């Protein structure tokens, strides 16, 4: 994967080769921003409204057959306006499209490993952060105010920086960054609050204390 340095970011070579003291200090701009709204997300609506077909498709690889997610009469009997989506599907329904009318072509390169030029699951840029080439999610916490039902449409609203902890781990030098976002519905009502911790890192740094590699997707 070719590293793509963020604007104004410290060059990769500096992060990789800098002394222990100086590489940690490169995260100081992010640490100083803890508590603030980063506003790195454009606030786009999820690609699709919540519909029965999307709920069915979400449940299928899990073989998740609870009737709440298929049968309007069962959902109604339990107080819901329509079929509900599983709570943990809320992130999926909040993801913007990879492409939609009006967006420039994103599939511009052929090849087995070719990547689109735009992706709603790409690493979230951190203003002032040193450039990194890898990231993965390490922890998730969510509060659900209600489940989504057919007809809802949601988006992420805001992105608050909760913490930034530089660390040298087995996979490289980087920082554990915790971000919090609210997911709001079509009435601008909060339906969930999600915190995700991501390890942004440069994989070519020296080995450090043992840490497990985990899921390399940002929510």
């Amino acid at each position, binding site marked *: 994967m070719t590293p793509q340095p963020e604007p104004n970011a410290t060059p990769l070579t500096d992060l990789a080769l800098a002394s222990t003291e100086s590489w940690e200090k490169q995260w100081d701009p992010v640490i100083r921003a803890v508590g603030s709204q980063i506003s790195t997300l454009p606030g786009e609506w999820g690609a699709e409204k919540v519909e029965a077909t999307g709920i069915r498709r979400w*449940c*299928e690889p*899990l073989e998740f057959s609870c009737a709440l997610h298929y049968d309007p009469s069962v959902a109604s009997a339990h107080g819901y306006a329509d079929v509900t989506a599983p709570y943990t*599907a809320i992130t*999926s329904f909040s993801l913007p499209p990879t492409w939609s009318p009006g967006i420039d072509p994103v599939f511009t390169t052929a090849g087995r490993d070719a990547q689109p030029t735009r992706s709603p699951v790409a690493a979230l840029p951190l203003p002032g952060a040193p450039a990194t080439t*890898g990231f993965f999610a390490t922890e*998730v916490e*969510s509060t659900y105010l209600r489940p989504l039902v057919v007809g809802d449409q949601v988006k992420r609203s805001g992105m608050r920086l909760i913490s930034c902890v530089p660390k040298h781990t087995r996979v490289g030098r980087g920082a554990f960054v915790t971000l919090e976002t609210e997911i709001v519905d079509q009435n601008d009502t909060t339906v969930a609050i999600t915190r995700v911790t991501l390890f942004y890192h440069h994989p070519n740094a020296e080995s450090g204390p043992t840490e*497990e*590699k985990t899921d390399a997707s940002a929510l």
Partner: protein
Amino acid sequence: MPAHYEPAQRHWDDLAIGEHIAAEEFPLSLYRLCMAASATRDFNSIHHNPDFARAAGAPTAYANNTFLQGMWEKTARSFIGPAGTIRALRKFTMRSFNTVDDVVTVRGEVLDKWHDTDAGVALIRMWSENGRGVSVGPGELEVTLPLRGGAR
């Protein structure tokens, strides 16, 4: 009409602290991870392209965290029934990859229970295991179950 499973409804009053919930197994294949990528809309190549995943430092393609969260919810739903709700997911800590060829087993245990103003609430410890030990968690789901007598 498809045979949708409607789990038997458990009531808060019947919960026992320390009670284990029925485990669920999720054998992982590349086929299944491709379906999961489409379902969750997490198309990151590390989750469906083994060579890409290896280039990124993983052993092979591995399950995305939304799919892993769904495993916990499916397992918990069988316990709390359709009248149950999920209020919160906590400490969903991913400790190791859950890759193609793994069988992920999700387990849970009732940690605590209490009355809220309008619901019977329980805290369930959840975790996922693969052949190498605990791969996700242990974390928690805060859930509600109906009270006998009809209040919720």
